[in-house]
């Protein structure tokens, strides 16, 4: 029996309050792939994530997650939100936040148990967060919070990990650390990763596929196949240039000097990480 792809979309359109947000999504993502979900603001990245989680439904077309209809597959998806609300006084320690990943959706409160503690502790160790396991989450930095959210999402051993712009509140160095961490864990546990980002450059060394979204449409494939002037021009519906400079990629609309994606890395002169 052939292994079902992680995610399959068949002619999916999403219409929300009269606006077509996504149209004609038709692709499949293989198990174990590391996919960068790239696109400008408003391209429908968050809608795509919500669609895969089954929080919104396609107007037409079908989606299958791990060979199952979306709602059912949800328990095998780990979701990492952009951030979380926490002021410094919030009485919740790092390990309590991670623990919510184990059973936060169940009614009632969790009875303390050794195996529960142990699973949480192992996950904290794995993401390198044990040093601040007992700190209130509101006192932690953006990078630290992101590690906790990743740990929280991984506790139930999901087959798919969805990360919604995890780099958006991070400095470049913490960003690279998070990418490396996700990459390592994904290989180790054979998890399929959908990593939403504004800029594809930090992900170039780790992703095997790019899911490029613009104007509510998507193209999926290798970076070399997808990030091409003809492909992106068709996607954006306007002429687009693609520049490759010292291992980095710039996507620029021909009628504008403003790059369509954002390039902090270039401005800081950081070469992309040489390791893979």
């Amino acid at each position, binding site marked *: 029996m052939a292994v079902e792809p992680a995610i399959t979309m068949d002619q999916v359109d999403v219409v929300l309050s009269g606006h077509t947000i996504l149209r004609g999504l038709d692709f499949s993502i293989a198990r174990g792939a590391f996919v960068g979900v790239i696109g400008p603001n408003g391209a429908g990245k968050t809608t795509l994530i919500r669609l895969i989680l089954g929080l919104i439904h396609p107007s037409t077309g079908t989606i299958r997650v791990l060979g199952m209809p979306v709602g059912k597959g949800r328990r095998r998806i780990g979701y990492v939100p952009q951030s979380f609300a926490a002021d410094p006084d919030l009485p919740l320690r790092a390990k*309590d936040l991670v623990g919510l990943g184990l059973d936060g*959706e169940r009614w009632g409160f969790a009875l303390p148990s050794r195996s529960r503690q142990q699973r949480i502790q192992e996950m904290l160790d794995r993401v390198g967060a044990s040093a601040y396991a007992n700190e209130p989450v509101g006192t932690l930095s953006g990078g630290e919070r992101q590690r906790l959210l990743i740990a929280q999402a991984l506790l139930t051993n999901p087959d798919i990990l969805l990360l919604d712009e995890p780099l958006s509140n991070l400095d470049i160095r913490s960003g690279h650390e998070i990418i490396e961490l996700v990459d390592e864990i994904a290989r180790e546990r054979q998890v399929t990763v959908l990593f939403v980002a504004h800029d594809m450059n930090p992900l170039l060394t780790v992703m095997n596929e790019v899911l490029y979204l613009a104007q509510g449409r998507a193209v999926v494939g290798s970076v070399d196949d997808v990030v091409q002037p003809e492909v992106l021009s068709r996607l954006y519906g306007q002429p687009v240039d693609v520049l490759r400079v010292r291992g980095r990629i710039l996507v620029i609309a021909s009628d504008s000097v403003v790059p369509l994606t954002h390039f902090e890395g270039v401005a800081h002169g950081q070469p992309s990480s040489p390791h893979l």
Partner: protein
Amino acid sequence: MHGLQYIVAAGFFQSPEVQVALMVGSAVAVTSAVVGTFVVIRGQSFLGHALGDVGSTGAAGAALIGIQAIWGFLSGGLVAGVAVDVLSRRPRERDVATGVVLSSMLGLSALFIYLITQLSSSTGVTQEILFGSIFTVAPRLVWPLSVLSVLALMLIGFLYRPLLLSSVSEDAALSRGVPVRLVSLLFLLAMITAVEQSALVVGALLSTALLIGPAATAIRFTRQLGYTLLLATVFALADTWVGILLAYNSFTWPPAGRGWPVSFFIVAIMVFLYLVSQIIPRAPSRRADKGGDSQ
């Protein structure tokens, strides 16, 4: 035992009013502390305050038709809670919706209170609605009030994990299949119960004090939710008991020898505890490694 006479005025524990006040006050204190902790965590203090204020409309209505104030408080809270929920489709609209509901209900309250004063030529009822009436609670209300408290506490116990998760990250909660909207509606019910009960004790205007005060104080001293709930409960109970005691003692105080309002004492103690908690520095970080991110 003799020293106690100077602290507790004669007849304190024998007085039936005091016995009822202590029982009702304790039930209300525990519920307010527990629910209030989640109100503070969820940043819903304004809604909590509004629910107390609009309770006065219900209570004034109840006085007009001659039923117990608590049922008026509860129906006022329910009407307002439902109205706020219906009007605030998006989280950002919640404060505006709360403000609109609050002012329209208070307008009605002004009319009811005017009618009360015209019909009964007494200001006692108004005073009780706005500033509490713990010493005049009918003894037969002890049971229903305790049952309401237990129900609100059970509801919080039931909602515990999904409520916490959706307070910290609604997206994470949704992704795990938590019915976030149902959870927040059920929490609203617990909130109405807690606020309206405490409106009965300390009055509609001050019910937020018992809801927010002990929780906001306890949060400063704890870093685990379980301990926060426990400490908030201790603060709320101690505050209510001492407040009742002082109010009882104040029957011999100037100017009139009629006793000062309980709500004054309860709020004064609460504010004092809160101020102390803000002055005492927070416990230092116990981080094992100051290195942080880079490992």
